[in-house]
């Protein structure tokens, strides 16, 4: 079966910089695919080229077997998009807004469809509230509901949880998981939260400075480190971080050596290897969210 999305050599240049540099990947049907990277890595530009909002300078994008460019309107009917900026018409209620969008897609069952997606994102009780009165998390849910209203095959979510408090973020994760498992939709999302990529995504592309630097399952990415844990501690020479396989032996070793030198080890911590370590390993930089 053809992949949901297939991208080769995707490049976008701006006057003074390259925003996306020869990006290539495939998204399989039914998976949650994440593009993870720090701000400014080129995630949103990549996503917007796939969605048909930004024209690539080079490269080919096929979505559901069709070329997106030069005429993205056809494919746009089959995809649902939540843009990074989600504010919509203030003075329509959530339900009115959804019905309006359903009508845009010529759906005769606009009312029923609006109620369905309100349920899917858990906004039933807010259906008669104006968008402007909703909380940040609720507005994101509404934006996702708008992306779902025409029952698309692929849903694109651009930093869906940015700016939300931890509780709202976790609640939104449940909504996104349900879109994938219950609605059986392919989900492509960008995020700069490592934890989010690890929690939600079947596969993650790590993007940095316009390029994809790694692509695998979260477990696969971490396994590529060939280490189980990161040990960090501070001694008289400064702060150290070690990626280690045998945690127990390594910790003992650190302490033993310190004792032999007569040094004091402070702030010793052991943390299971995660995507942060992958990023550090790939780019040589600490990941900053």
């Amino acid at each position: 079966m053809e992949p949901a999305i297939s991208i080769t050599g995707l490049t976008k240049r701006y006057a003074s910089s390259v925003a996306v540099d020869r990006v290539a990947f495939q998204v399989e049907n039914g998976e949650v695919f994440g593009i993870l990277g720090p701000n400014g890595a080129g995630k949103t530009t990549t996503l917007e080229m796939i969605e048909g909002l930004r024209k690539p300078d080079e490269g080919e994008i096929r979505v559901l077997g069709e070329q997106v460019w030069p005429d993205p309107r056809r494919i746009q009917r089959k995809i649902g998009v939540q843009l990074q900026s989600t504010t919509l018409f203030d003075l329509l209620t959530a339900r009115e807004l959804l019905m309006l969008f359903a009508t845009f897609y010529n759906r005769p069952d606009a009312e029923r469809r609006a109620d369905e997606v309100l349920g899917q994102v858990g906004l039933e009780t807010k259906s008669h509230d104006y968008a402007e009165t909703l909380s940040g998390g609720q507005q994101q849910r509404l934006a996702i509901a708008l992306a779902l209203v025409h029952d698309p095959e692929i849903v694109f979510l651009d930093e869906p949880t940015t700016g939300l408090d931890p509780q709202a973020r976790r609640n939104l994760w449940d909504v996104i998981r349900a879109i994938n498992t219950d609605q059986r939709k392919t989900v492509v999302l960008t995020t700069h939260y490592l934890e989010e990529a690890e929690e939600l995504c079947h596969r993650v592309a790590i993007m940095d400075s316009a390029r994809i630097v790694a692509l695998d399952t979260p477990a696969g990415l971490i396994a590529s480190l060939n280490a189980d844990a990161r040990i960090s501690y501070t001694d008289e020479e400064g702060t150290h971080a070690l990626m280690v396989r045998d945690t127990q032996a390594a910790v003992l070793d650190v302490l033993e050596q310190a004792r032999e030198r007569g040094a004091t080890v402070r702030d010793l911590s052991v943390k299971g290897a995660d995507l942060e370590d992958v990023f550090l390993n790939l780019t040589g930089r600490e990941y900053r969210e």
Partner: protein
Amino acid sequence: MNVNRFLAATIAQLKMTFRRRITLFWSLVFPMILMTLLGLLFGRSISAGTIAVVPVHAAAPQAVMHVLEHTKGVTVKTSPTAAEAIQQVKNGDRDAAVVFVPTGSGSYRVRLFTSNTSADQAGIIKGIVLGATEGVSVAATGRAPALIFQPQSVDSSSLTYIDFLLPGIVALSIMISAVIGLSTVLVNWRQRGILRRLKLTPIPLAEFFAARVTASLVVAIMQVAVLLLFGRIAFGVHISATAWAAIPVALAGCLCFLAMGFAIGSIVSDPETGDAVGNVVTNPMMFLSGTFFPVAAMPVYIQQIARVLPLYYMTNGLRDTTVRGLPLSHVMSDIAVLLVMTLGLALVGLRTFRWEPKTKTSRTRSRRRRSTNVPADSPIRQEGERAL
């Protein structure tokens, strides 16, 4: 074009318009307040004033008094003595005093005392009293006068100030709603990414804007109806039978000002500038287009400026049809001018139209810089880092 979709979009636009209280204020309440204020300030000019008359029990003075009492805009109050009448004028209680001085053989000299405070008013009263005395003289002698003076006003014939004002206010309110309404909405939609979001849906932007325009036209017709009714009820303005022809004029005018709002909204980048430019364009137009005072009363060069302003044609068209009783055929030229201007302004708007904010990339970057440079200012980010 899809009818159901178009209707749904139009209804949504109307809902948003009516839910925004400030829009309703500017389109209906503000014009009513403005009209009431101007009506109170200048509407009085149809009243020439109150004249103190010292009554004399003789045929000719009684006849003059009778004529004055029945002159529109003049109130007659009697005073017992000439001295008291003159004092009343001095005090400002009366605008003029009329005293009949017998000259013998049954004839009288009519002496008029006016105040120097208002030369215009004194002139008007002088004219009225002169007319009354001459009329009575002619009637008394029974001889037809050799010359008959027949004044007739070319402009605003039989229009009171409030009659004149009402169509101007209607035009003004349609202009403000259309220009400010569409320009700020367009900037807002672009700034907030609503245009980009719409681009992802199958509705063509032209259809979406057509829905917005239709909603604005509905509001314009409502403004015509409500404000005319207000003028009729509150000020007794006589609405002509041809007033229905004001609707095509209002629609053409509204289209023209929507095109202007579209052009402004396309050119400017942020809502504040949009608002400012809208005001800079509409405010002078109010004063130059004969909204409050006849253009004919203005200096020639202003009259020439007025002729390139759409509000001038809309005001004229509305005035002709609503209070002057002129038919649609008479205002077709005004409608034509408005439609040509619509076309020109719409072209400007289309040529400068942008889906996305002008400084999109630099703005995004600076926003991003801020968010990475200040990681500890929000509890969200702190939590994010802890979660690592």
